[in-house]
């Protein structure tokens, strides 16, 4: 007699990493805050604007499914007025353009990121946001 299979408990996939519930909770918090001032930020309307089903966005917000694709996160960031890189990081993703940058010189960029890990904020700002002064 074949061994009986354990019953299927749910079609929902469990979060794969600890970053995913944080992503969903963050999205929900931002959207709910916006919704208090503007009803256009209801779950349904946001889902329609970013081209996903409301039920799916609800699952994402509750952390029951993995975060959506980069394309959808881009739409979400734009719709909610959030920083794309922050949302991608919360989703445990690295954007395609950054992946391409790292792929070109992986060892160098790995070393750069590790060296900046403990650097003070002004040292990091100097690398990423400093305005170059030229000849004038």
């Amino acid at each position, binding site marked *: 007699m074949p061994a009986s299979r354990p019953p299927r408990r749910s079609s929902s996939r469990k979060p794969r990493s600890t970053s995913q519930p944080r992503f969903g909770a963050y999205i929900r918090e931002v959207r709910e805050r916006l919704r208090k001032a503007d009803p256009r930020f209801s779950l349904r309307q946001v889902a329609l604007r970013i081209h996903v089903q409301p039920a799916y966005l609800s699952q994402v917000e509750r952390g029951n499914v993995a975060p959506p694709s980069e394309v959808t996160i881009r739409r979400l960031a734009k719709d909610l007025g959030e920083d794309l890189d922050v949302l991608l990081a919360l989703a445990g993703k690295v954007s395609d353009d950054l992946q391409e940058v790292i792929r070109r010189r992986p060892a160098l960029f790995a070393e750069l990121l590790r060296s900046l890990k403990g650097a003070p904020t002004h040292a990091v700002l100097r690398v990423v946001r400093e305005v*170059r002064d030229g000849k004038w």
Partner: protein
Amino acid sequence: MVTLEGDRLVFRFPDVHEQARLTVTFQRTLRIPDDDRHYPLPPGLGGFPLRHMDDYRGQLPKPWVERGGVLMPMHQAEAMWISFASHYPMAVTVAAGKVNAITGSALTRGLHRRPQNYLVTPDQPWLDGFCVEKGLIRQFVAMPLGQGYSVEEQVSRTAEHGGLQLIVRPLKAAAYRRLQRERNDIARRTAFDAYCLSSDMGLAPGGRMRQEVYEDPFETADWAQKHVSRCFITIVNGALWLPMTGEALPSVPPTASDYTAAGLPWFEYYNPGAVALPGSKTLAKVKSVKAMSGSKGVSALLENDSADVQRRIRIHPSRPRRVREGRS
């Protein structure tokens, strides 16, 4: 060190003091009428976008890239003011087309007292234009370089630089500590300003408004003159901004007469403890955009109706959370 954070320029001097930080933004605003009246301060309608020059270097003229700094778009004949936010005192030299906006002389790197060629934050929270008389300025208005309107062309007789230039120096840490002991409430004062111009446009003098530029309350030796940060703000003609950056430009602000007719307020800044500088005789002689266009026989300003200002809000330094800053 100068960094671009969102649409704000941030000047930091961590080697001098951890709080030595100045945030500068460039505010969109109404162009005040260029008539025989003296207007109060117009509102802020949100900051102009600022972008790293280096992010678009492949699409820009080589002389722009060489000067570094940032890009800022302005429509032709659009006005702006500079907002300075700091708790820590800073000496800020402001120039348009390398002509000092306070003295009307050529931009120099040093700080001078007679005449004073810089402003001091946080006592000076904003600068709306060229200092032409004591307590009176002519508004910053963007005009294409090469047509004779800009202050650079009228004073220096060249159309070489355009844009806006900022040079910032912090107070020495010892002077700051002394100041904190003397006036431990200074940190509550705030100011805002930031501005960048593009080589394609220069700043010309617009209508007159009441604004004082204040005398430096510190000693020359109090300034950390060896610690200097500067930024060239290239002003890009608004018509070129979309093809250059792929970004849409904010819409043109309402006219002064429409804004006033809607019952919206104008502003006055009153600092009873400060002494106003006398203004520049050189800048007092430059022609406004309206006067210059009249002498050319053209009409550079499509809208210049006088505004009958009814609502004025007086802002004091002790109440730094000004309402002047708006959202775009």
